[in-house]
């Protein structure tokens, strides 16, 4: 069994409570989908049981034959399908079948990123220490999904709700990001 990118950081992330409930969700199935044809996008959404997001910088989620699945908008013809671990091969086959002969691609990128789920009343304040995107709930409501920089590290940031944010970060940058999170939380921990 391979250790997850943040396995060594589990205790240090847990110590950020009560400011932040931070936990890694490792090894999630991730597939990068490149397709621009609207009919193919709809067909892949139906095959998955979750329709692809139509608006820029948003994500969709739902439950289908692969359990809880999220589809993230990454670009005008680029999406990231995220599901529970060990489903990537099955989902890849299903999506390729739905794509058919239409120009596009489905690539397993599960090893590229790990996931950190952050929850707590201060989550937006902590992230604002290193993220230039406006995280006010009015500008970034639940369902927002942006690719941006957090403390100079490229991330995908998903807003799940007022107090809950999911960060997808490249595996090799994960430890740096965890260290930065611990540092950014320190001022809130001091008064908590």
């Amino acid at each position, binding site marked *: 069994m391979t250790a997850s990118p943040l396995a060594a950081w589990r205790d240090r992330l847990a110590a950020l409570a009560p400011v932040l409930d931070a936990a890694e969700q490792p090894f999630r199935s991730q597939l990068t989908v490149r397709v621009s044809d609207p009919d193919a996008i709809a067909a892949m959404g139906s095959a998955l049981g979750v329709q692809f997001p139509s608006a*820029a910088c948003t994500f969709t989620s739902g439950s289908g034959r692969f359990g809880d699945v999220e589809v993230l908008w990454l670009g005008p013809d680029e999406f990231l399908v995220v599901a529970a671990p060990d489903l990537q091969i099955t989902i890849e086959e299903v999506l390729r079948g739905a794509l058919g002969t239409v120009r596009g691609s489905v690539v397993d990128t599960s090893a590229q990123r790990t996931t950190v789920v952050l929850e707590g009343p201060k989550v937006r304040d902590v992230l604002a220490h290193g993220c230039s995107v406006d995280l006010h709930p009015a500008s970034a409501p639940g369902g927002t999904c942006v*690719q941006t*920089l957090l403390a100079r590290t490229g991330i995908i940031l998903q807003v799940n709700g007022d107090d809950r944010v999911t960060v997808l970060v490249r595996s090799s940058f994960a430890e740096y990001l965890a260290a930065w999170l611990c540092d950014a939380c320190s001022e809130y921990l001091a008064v908590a």
Partner: protein
Amino acid sequence: MQLIPCPWCGPREEAEFHYGGQAHVAYPEDPSALTDEEWAQYVFFRENPSGPFAERWSHNAGCRRWFNAVRDTRTHDLLAVYRVGEPMPEVIA
């Protein structure tokens, strides 16, 4: 912090972007027919206006798409952004 309005993602910090030089420099239809001087003109020579300048930018840390922007070189104001393939909009500097 300078904000650059990506045509897909909206206003983002300048650090997320990569500069790509002058926009609308068309690749020669028949490169082999060009003289050395004409080829050098295509490869190396660019406009250097004082005022509005159409440029290519890439949203590297975001949607990773190239787009065009008209920037006033005197003030660094971005007067307009538009997607690749769209005509350059009229701007008033």
